[in-house]
């Protein structure tokens, strides 16, 4: 995302609203990550491949997802 795109995000005047949006975005990102990893593992991707795609270590992705997939 370019800087211009970030600056075009409508930041709510109320800090509480802006911070609530951060919380809601993180929730959606978590759900998307869980769904994407589950899909990848179901299609035979290795933890090493998933980790590389997410840009994290294999240990990190395994710890976060291995018990749920």
């Amino acid at each position, binding site marked *: 995302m370019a800087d211009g795109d970030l600056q075009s*995000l*409508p*930041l*709510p005047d109320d800090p*509480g*609203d*802006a*911070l*609530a*949006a951060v*919380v*809601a*975005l993180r*929730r*959606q990102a*978590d*759900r*998307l990550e*869980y*769904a994407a990893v*589950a*899909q990848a593992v179901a299609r035979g991707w290795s933890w090493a491949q998933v980790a590389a795609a997410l840009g994290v270590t294999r240990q990190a992705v395994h710890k976060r997802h291995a*018990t*749920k*997939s």
Partner: protein
Amino acid sequence: MNFPNPFRSQSSWGRLVEASIDYAERLGDRQVGAEHLLLAVLDDPTGATRRAFAAAGADPTAVEDAIRWSHANALRAIGIEPVPEAALDVGGRPGKHRRSDFGESCRQVIGTAATRAKLAGVGSIDLHMLDAIGDLREGTAARALRELGLGPGALHAAVLDELAAASRAA
């Protein structure tokens, strides 16, 4: 996390922990927050928390929807339409919560409720938790309560009424 001593030995504490974890998983949250604790205390088998909630003017069965609306509205405020939950449902659970997954809002509520329970010496843990959650000014639980028309402190008088009733019955 280390739970305050007043709660460790009480069976209702175990019920609250398990229920709040279940609610966090049901809502797709990795961390247990005060909003999940709120849903858990409203399952209080005595019905005292639901009575207090209704007496304050809100529907206790509407809390889960209010939490979802709160998150959705927060995204819309920055121009993002929330992805429908069904679209990301892969048929699994979002995470296996551990006790360390209890967030700061939970710690705050538990600490406040523990202090009040000790001072009052009466009433269920659930009522003191509800009172403490009702005092929150920021965060998802506070925003969900505001969605239901309950600002900070709006639950306090109703909780006190229930505590007084519990005291008379004791």
